[in-house]
């Protein structure tokens, strides 16, 4: 297979073997190593026939900052090559899609329409990211406390886009509910579920 080599040659080709996106063969992308050209210039090689989820990326500055935060600081300034940042941008979108489709599948299997937190956590575990589970659960807990503490919210109401397809299916498990409210005006409901934690003795709140 191809080897990666450091080089003084200014231009390198990226060999993209993308069997699932193309019918076969190799894909060449021209790319300047000095980082001036965007890694995401797919139009040259027509890798995509239609719009894919990987085309939407998170802002590179945010991604780069988080990368830096993950790397131990030795007193020297951490440098990240531009193509490395761009690459992680793509990886991030891939990761999100990866998790989402797994979670979505589980959701469908259970005949629910809305992906909930448990689906996401389950997907993490299934796909080999179980090392994230504990920090995520902890984070969720803190987030709820922070939300409760926000002035002026007895609960949370949601507009379109989140939770509007909340159905009774969401309640099929024994769930202690965190915050439930019904906004009379919007007729939408947000429910925090903690189905992965069983808290004995908590009265189940049913929404009908």
């Amino acid at each position: 297979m191809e080897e990666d080599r450091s080089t003084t040659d200014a231009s390198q080709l990226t060999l993209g073997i993308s069997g699932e996106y193309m019918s076969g063969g190799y894909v060449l992308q021209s790319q300047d190593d000095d980082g001036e050209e965007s890694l995401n210039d797919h139009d040259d090689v027509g890798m995509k026939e239609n719009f894919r989820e990987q085309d939407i990326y998170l802002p590179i500055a945010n991604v780069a900052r988080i990368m830096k935060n993950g790397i131990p600081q030795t007193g020297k300034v951490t440098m990240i090559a531009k193509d490395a940042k761009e690459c992680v941008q793509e990886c991030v979108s891939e990761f999100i899609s990866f998790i989402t489709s797994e979670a979505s599948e589980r959701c469908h299997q259970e005949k629910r329409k809305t992906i909930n937190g448990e689906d996401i956590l389950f997907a993490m575990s299934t796909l080999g990211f179980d090392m994230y589970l504990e920090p995520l659960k902890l984070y969720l807990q803190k987030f709820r406390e922070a939300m409760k503490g926000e002035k002026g919210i007895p609960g949370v109401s949601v507009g379109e886009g989140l939770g509007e397809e909340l159905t009774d299916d969401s309640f099929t498990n024994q769930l202690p509910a965190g915050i439930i409210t019904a906004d009379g005006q919007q007729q939408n409901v947000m429910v925090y579920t903690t189905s992965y934690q069983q808290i004995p003795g908590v009265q189940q709140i049913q929404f009908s």
Partner: protein
Amino acid sequence: MSSNVEEKVNHASNSKGISLPMTRVKLIMKSSPDVSSINQEALLLTTKATELFVQHLALSSFNNGSGKDQTLLYSDLANTVEEKETFQFLTDILPKKILVRDYLKLLEENPIEEADN
């Protein structure tokens, strides 16, 4: 979400350290086929998980790589993705780079058949 609620969610999530735009994360999630809706908890967890993922990938690559001058290179990422099972879902989008001359040499040795689309 109403803008009022969104503000509160953003504030709560920022105060606990989320630095990625959740709306963008949601956009990516929604572009997956067969996804109809995503509840707030799911979005939050995905966003946070994404942060953890970025840090995880960066750290693994950095430790794995040359580490010269405290610099993270593309090649470090490509190597890590190849070696670590957790990251192997990324192999398609993270090909190793090859010099033109090496690629041409590779072609000579292993001629590619005509693609039969």
